[in-house]
């Protein structure tokens, strides 16, 4: 088991932040990362390549029941919800979209909150809807750390603002600060 598990939710306006983060994360990064991004339905594999261009860490769309390992970024596949199970595997589902979203950020956040509790670090980025706020709150309630992109820094404020309005998030950071925080996290939790 890794010491920390990072789960990131992003929607409209988050792509550049994600690219910047992936570029900054060092090789041998010791924490698994779950990435849930809202995207167009029919864009599938090209998206992974676009995201991976500058990443030093392996980015993949997991298959069902894949074992969660450090050194991987698990991108929720288009048209599936992604769960972190108790037995350190990923499971997928095709149940209905939630708030018009499949993958749903809330679903992955909830599952990470309960499976990984204080090991979870949830990060919510720019977006034009309210997906992720409830799930992020759950991460906080289960003992994890919550990070929200500063709405003033986000291209679209709605999603991060929804979390800030809902509960007291631990950190409100700019894109640069988020990248800095996450890419140095392994010095904090050795």
């Amino acid at each position: 088991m890794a010491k920390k598990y990072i789960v990131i939710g992003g929607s409209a306006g988050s792509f550049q932040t994600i690219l910047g983060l992936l570029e900054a994360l060092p090789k041998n990064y010791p924490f698994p990362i779950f990435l849930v991004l809202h995207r167009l339905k029919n864009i599938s594999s090209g998206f992974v390549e676009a995201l991976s261009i500058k990443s030093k860490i392996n980015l993949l769309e997991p298959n069902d029941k894949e074992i969660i390992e450090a050194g991987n970024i698990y991108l929720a596949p288009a048209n599936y919800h992604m769960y972190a199970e108790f037995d350190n595997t990923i499971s997928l589902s095709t149940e209905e979209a939630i708030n018009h979203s499949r993958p749903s950020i809330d679903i992955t956040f909830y599952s990470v909150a309960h499976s990984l509790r204080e090991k979870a670090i949830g990060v919510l980025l720019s977006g034009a809807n309210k997906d992720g706020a409830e799930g992020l709150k759950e991460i906080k309630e289960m003992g994890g750390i919550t990070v929200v992109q500063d709405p003033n820094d986000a291209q679209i404020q709605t999603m991060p603002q929804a979390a800030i309005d809902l509960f007291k998030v631990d950190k409100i950071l700019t894109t640069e600060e988020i990248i800095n925080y996450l890419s140095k996290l392994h010095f904090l939790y050795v």
Partner: protein
Amino acid sequence: MVDDNQIKDIIQVIKKVADYDFSDYSIKSFQRRIDKILEDYRLDFNGLVKRIYSSSPEEMEKLIADITVNTTELFRNPIVWHSVKYRILPKLKDNEKIDIWHAGCSTGQEVYSMLILLKEMGMLDKVNVYASDINQLAIDKAKKGEYIYRFNIEYLQNFDEVIRKNPYNFEEYNDVPYSRYFDIDQELDKISIKNEYKDIAIFKKQDLVKRENVFYKKFDVIMCRNVLIYFNLKLQSQILNFFYDNLKFPGYLVLGYHESILGNEVVKFHKKHYYYTKKLI
């Protein structure tokens, strides 16, 4: 939200009252389904337990329908259907009879996709198509072959990808009209399968967990897409063995786009393109 012990209790109660065993379902998505049921039925945990105990058989079927997931599309993931069209079915073309089973057919869109493809390939006459699902309400819908147009319109693109276009020859385009297979009524927001394709497939209710072959047949092709994701590894492995035993040789297994064969069953199947073939062991 129901907690982990409450989930176990609910599973036990359902097992006791009705003949369904959800013990080996993936916990997280099952939990999510139960939460959704509590929300939709406006019940709390105790209310749900009471409800289960007092359910009529019809109410229980409704509950099972709500617990299980019934997402399906026409020609879902065209690239997988390219496997079926260009790699699997051509190998069966010379068989006298072909038996195809859709395990977990939900509301039937995939079954009709197969019938359409078989018709276009001139193979429909020699094929028996079987379809099963745990959800009786979904099966009733599947038999009816009537869907909401606005929910299915985007899947007609998939039809184009699989039936009209040829991924190996971009200049080829078969302008197969939708009206060959569908009656579309935009005013009533309805898309129906043409009657002549409705009575071909044999639909039966089946709980895969019980591993009973309800068709008493062996199959050349088993389609089981996005069903195993709801099962834990132990149950997945049992079902894969069940499929193995009920496939002919050669036999083809098609799973969901993000499903794969893991664990001990790896040695029983060859992975090819977007499908698996039965290995002789």
